[in-house]
């Protein structure tokens, strides 16, 4: 090998490195905060219902069956894109859908639900945002899949699409059901 090729090889190496960087960042969102909570028990919480703040519901009430916790807010633009998908495909998931109203004025949230419909089985409200911090929520919409024993199995950041339901959520829910049947 001629030594003249050496600088060229160095150049190819740098090019490969940069190419890998571009490819990697196309497939991964560098802004996405990885959740260290996946595979760990969901935080214990007890939150008032949006409709009736005198009643509270929490992790102990939800234990025993898997559920999907969907973080939403009336101030969140992307939630408005996600909402019709939950309305049309929410029932198809076959598990309890828990709405987690995040740092929202109760009146705004109620108006939002009245206007666009309610895809949730139950809606809890976290106005101070403390429980959201325990869940590692960075914004809305975010979605957590919690299994029957209360362990977080999966987290999805950004609006749910039909594709996400088909490729990410439904297989994982089927897996949970298979495990429960055993």
């Amino acid at each position, binding site marked *: 090998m001629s*030594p*003249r090729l050496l*600088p060229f090889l*160095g150049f190819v190496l740098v090019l490969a490195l940069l190419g890998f960087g571009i490819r990697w960042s196309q497939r991964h969102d560098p*802004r996405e*905060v*990885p*959740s*260290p*909570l996946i595979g760990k028990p969901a935080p214990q919480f007890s939150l008032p219902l949006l409709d009736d703040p005198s009643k509270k519901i929490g992790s102990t009430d939800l234990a025993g069956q898997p559920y999907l916790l969907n973080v939403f807010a009336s101030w969140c633009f992307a939630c408005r894109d996600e909402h019709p998908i939950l309305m049309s495909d929410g029932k198809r998931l076959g598990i309890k859908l828990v709405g987690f109203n995040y*740092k929202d004025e109760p009146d705004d949230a109620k108006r939002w639900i009245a206007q666009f419909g309610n895809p949730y089985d139950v809606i809890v409200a976290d106005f*101070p*945002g*403390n429980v959201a*911090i*325990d*869940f*590692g*929520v*960075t*914004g809305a919409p975010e979605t957590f899949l919690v299994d029957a024993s209360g362990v977080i199995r999966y987290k999805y950041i950004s609006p749910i699409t039909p594709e996400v339901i088909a490729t990410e959520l439904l297989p994982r829910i089927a897996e949970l059901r298979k495990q429960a049947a055993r």
Partner: protein
Amino acid sequence: MIRLRLPMNASRAGRRPSLPVLVLVTILCFIVASFAFAIDPLPFKDHAQELRFQALTKQLRCLVCQNESLADSNAPLAADLRRDVFQQMQAGKTDDEIKAWLTARYSDFVLYDPPLSGGTWLLWFGPAIVLLAGAAVILVVVRRRTRVAPQSSNVTRSASAAEDDW
């Protein structure tokens, strides 16, 4: 609102504001700007705790505006996290305990100074490796040239032959 009368009067008198006056005004602007750091007034025990709080929140990343620290960010989540950091400080937690509490929820992403671990060793030692590789290349090139130079000096006094090697 504070009205800056001094420069106004000076200009009305037909004189431009003198340099000391301009310097004074500039310094005053910076002093006022430094108060803007206290986004939400927190009842600190003493000044030392306030300094500790500001030093700690500067090392933490806001998870919404990710190029800002928790100390600087106006995002509602950053305000909530500042409140939690403050409460934990009041409860006597150390900086390391507070960081552990945050990383349990938001992973190392929340730290501007990532710890040395399996996934970050390249980040820590990558520059040193590149530096060593560069040094090795230079070493090889210099050695080769010194080997070539005596031969070429027999042919011609100029070092152009050695440079042609590349």
